[in-house]
């Protein structure tokens, strides 16, 4: 991951080597001074209670004092481990340990109404709470946290950076597919016992929509974040020109189910498998991370795929 501060400077056209005075002046102008300096002597002590909030805090250049256990590769997603070494774990996203949070004496708690509404009064007793409505809208999460942490500029720069990369990648995709662009797409999550089709409203679904992909017919007609497929008979609901496929975990049961699905005639008859447009992507980046850094990893994966396609 490139250093966000460096990236910020390159985006506003600053020379890469600056004197300390210029650097501090530029940082102040950008509003990205570390918050402790802005807030006086009190350091920010953030506890993030869902994965997207943890990701967004790191994206904003803040190390939380407490985070919840990750869904995969516990306790922390590998891509966040360097930034979060030694951070206190405060239990599960669905049921964080309130006593552990209290012990950290936080100055800000980031939670979501979707998961933590029941404990909201208690959290508010511990520290000011940023309560996001849900956990899928990475832009909302980033902006709300940027606001609460006094890092609006940094959040805005990250969004600008994201939009710039989306525009560039969309052009590359259009060039790659030619007259077939925009192609239809399915975002498929294979678990040990079920298949889920993620919809435009979902976390990575928003990114695919921003990139200009068209959704498969079933996704266009459905509402919500995802649909569970009943079984192999429902595979045709995934029909699209391109598949992004995630394996929910590295467990043998998932691998076994994925093998069974992908060798099934109904799978092999669909357009994407027939034309070899099935891209396996990382479940952590695409559904579990929930934040801007995860989104940037998704863009990296699509770019890497385009490069592989160009070579072959």
């Amino acid at each position, binding site marked *: 991951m490139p250093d966000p501060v460096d990236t910020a400077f390159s985006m506003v056209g600053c020379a890469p080597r600056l004197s300390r005075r210029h650097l501090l002046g530029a940082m102040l102008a950008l509003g990205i001074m570390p918050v402790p300096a802005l807030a006086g002597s009190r350091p920010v002590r953030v506890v993030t209670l869902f994965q997207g909030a943890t990701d967004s805090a790191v994206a904003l250049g803040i190390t939380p004092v407490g985070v919840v256990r990750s869904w995969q590769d516990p306790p922390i997603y590998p891509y966040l481990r360097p930034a979060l070494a030694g951070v206190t*774990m405060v*239990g599960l996203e*669905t*049921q964080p*340990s*309130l*006593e*552990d949070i*209290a*012990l950290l*004496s936080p100055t800000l708690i980031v939670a979501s*109404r*979707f998961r933590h*509404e*029941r*404990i909201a*009064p*208690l959290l508010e*007793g*511990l520290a000011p709470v940023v309560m996001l409505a*849900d956990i899928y809208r990475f832009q909302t999460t980033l902006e709300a946290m940027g606001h609460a942490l006094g890092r609006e500029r940094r959040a805005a720069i990250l969004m600008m950076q994201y939009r710039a990369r989306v525009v560039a990648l969309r052009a590359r995709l259009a060039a790659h597919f030619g007259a077939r662009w925009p192609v239809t797409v399915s975002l498929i999550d294979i678990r040990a016992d079920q298949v889920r089709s993620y919809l435009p409203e979902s976390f990575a679904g928003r990114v695919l929509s921003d990139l200009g992909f068209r959704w498969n017919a079933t996704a266009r007609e459905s509402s*919500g*974040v*995802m649909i*569970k497929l009943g079984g192999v008979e429902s595979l045709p609901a995934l029909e699209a020109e391109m598949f992004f496929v995630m394996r929910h975990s590295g467990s043998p049961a998932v691998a076994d189910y994925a093998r069974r699905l992908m060798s099934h005639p109904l799978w092999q008859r669909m357009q994407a498998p027939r034309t070899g447009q099935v891209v396996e992507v990382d479940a952590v980046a695409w559904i579990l991370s929930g934040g801007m850094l995860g989104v940037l990893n998704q863009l990296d994966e699509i770019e890497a795929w385009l490069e592989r396609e160009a070579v072959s």
Partner: protein
Amino acid sequence: MVERTLRLGRFSRRFLPTAWARVAALLLVMMLVLLVSLALGRVMLGPGALLEALMNPHAPTGLIVRELRLPRILLAALIGAALGVAGWLLQQVMRNPLASPDIIGVTSGASAAAVSYLAWLAVPLGMAGLPVAAMLGAAGAALAVYTLAWSHGVTPLRLVLTGIGMAAALGAVTTLVLAISPLTTTLSAYVWLTGSVYGANWSDVSSLALWCVALLVPLAALMRQVMLAPLDDALATGLGLAVQRHRAALLALASALAGVAVAWGGAFVFVGLVAPHLARRLSGYSGTAQMVLALLYGALLVMLADLVARTLFLPLDLPAGIFVAALGAPFFLALLIREVR
């Protein structure tokens, strides 16, 4: 057992000093469990530190003890107490030692309503409506059981059988909702169905306490009728009981007590069945003392279950409902075996 009579003008009551000594002893045990629960958790506190946390609002552990542990322990006690009384009342009125809020459809009605709420209404309406949904579900199920069992009045046996049928049907509804519900509600639904006091706050405690008081006052006024309820219909009528009217009133009270308990704690099963038996078999007293004992055993059971659930697998914090049966069942079976011998 020496029975005493208390007379104050027109007011007179008979009471057994030994029974009330037992009640006092149980209260003492509860106080002890309360103190131990306050001291144990993620941060272990010694007696001195606990006293400081309780007395000094600015102590670093004050927040943990007073805002996190104390309301949680009290909510557990209230839920257990309400379920214990509800179960005892149902066993009296139904004349059946197997009667409990779980069997006559109250818990399953609340469960079906709560799970449906979690699946479809929790996101647009927020979680504040969950206790209301659960209470409406409990009331609806109790009313449906009563109406379906009606045929020139209700008899206890018809009520029990109708209740079992209703519980089975509502159990199927709950499972169906879980299977078709959108995704992530499933986990919170399972926690609810097990029964948990995680995240209890003072406003939960005061709401439930208010409900319990509001329901126990009319119950106290009806105690004479409760004592006559286990008798044969003809005998009870002869002793001045308006059998159908009083039965309906007592059933409504029992359902409401169980309904509010479940609304704030989730579907704690087994408490309502086992607490009255503990009261009956461990003491042998009858009357009000027995009801108070059922209340205290119920409270103690849920308090202990939550203490174990919260501390045994640290840092995990499990739903207390898991341990109600784990603690209650062996004890219950041991009692039965001892009685057979």
